[in-house]
């Protein structure tokens, strides 16, 4: 199984995402923002960081990179895509996921170990978890406050598109404690917290994050 990790100018957690992919048992494939070549990957991770310095809006410029045209096209045809932090911002800007991420309510960058509740355990990236399972992974962002118009939020909730929710405290003022959402078909997931930083006992607060990367192995094989 080959899982691509896209590097944009300013991507930072690409090495971490690639490590998580390897620890999950897949091959990590480096993808370059300016290319139009998905190199035959089965799934794609858009990593965290500050693509283009978060200038204009976080994720806005990266969402218009050449590689994203291919990612969007394949995602619409069912290829699993995971966006972490800045990657989530890119997916929202690219229109693959609903809503937007704005400046944290308290205006600070905040890095802490965060409890999350997995609301949907049937997506390509969360099927290794039990519904309602609580996991602890790091969260770290300055523009991670999930927002959408109230009617859109109601629709999201109604259609069960909230994938993960903050538990035990909301770190950034996200509406309805939303930490991550999925596409209607469950193939595209974006979240602000960083599961790729919770894949080793040595370096993470837990190994709870590994499930995101093992989930997709099952999802691709099943598809």
């Amino acid at each position, binding site marked *: 199984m080959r899982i691509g990790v896209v590097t944009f100018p300013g991507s930072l957690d690409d090495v971490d995402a690639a490590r998580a992919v390897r620890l999950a048992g897949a091959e990590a494939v480096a993808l370059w923002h300016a290319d139009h070549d998905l190199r035959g990957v089965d799934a794609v991770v858009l990593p965290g960081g500050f693509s283009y310095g978060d200038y*204009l809006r976080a994720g*806005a410029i990266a969402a218009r990179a050449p590689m994203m045209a291919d990612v969007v096209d394949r995602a619409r045809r069912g290829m699993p895509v995971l966006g972490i932090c800045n990657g989530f911002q890119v997916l*929202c800007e690219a229109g693959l996921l609903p809503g*937007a991420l*704005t400046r944290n309510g308290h205006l600070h960058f905040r890095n802490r170990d965060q409890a999350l509740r997995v609301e949907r355990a049937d997506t390509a990236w969360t099927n290794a978890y039990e519904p309602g399972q609580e996991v602890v992974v790091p969260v770290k962002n300055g523009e991670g406050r999930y927002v*959408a*118009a109230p009617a859109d939020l109601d629709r999201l909730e109604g259609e069960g598109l909230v994938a993960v929710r903050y538990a035990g405290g909301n770190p950034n*003022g996200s509406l309805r404690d939303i930490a991550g959402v999925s596409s209607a078909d469950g193939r595209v997931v974006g979240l602000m917290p960083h599961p790729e930083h919770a894949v080793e006992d040595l370096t993470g607060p837990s190994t709870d994050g590994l499930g995101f990367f093992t989930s997709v192995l099952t999802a691709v094989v099943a598809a």
Partner: protein
Amino acid sequence: MSRVVVDVVLKPEISDPQGQAVLGALGRLGHDSVRSVRQGKHFVLEVDGTPDEAELREIAETLLANPVIEDVELHLPRG
């Protein structure tokens, strides 16, 4: 060359912590008459020839602003 200004502001239903922070500071400075502050972005584009309003609106709505949360105001040169 003409100058086109695009202002981008958060939609009214989206809360604006930065604007609220400024409002709080104004209160502490004694400027009690200010009721609300909304912070936005101001772009100045220098365009060759006569600006094409439709093209500029597309630029404003697809790149400069995120239509999920932001509105745009386009200011074309008069004339």
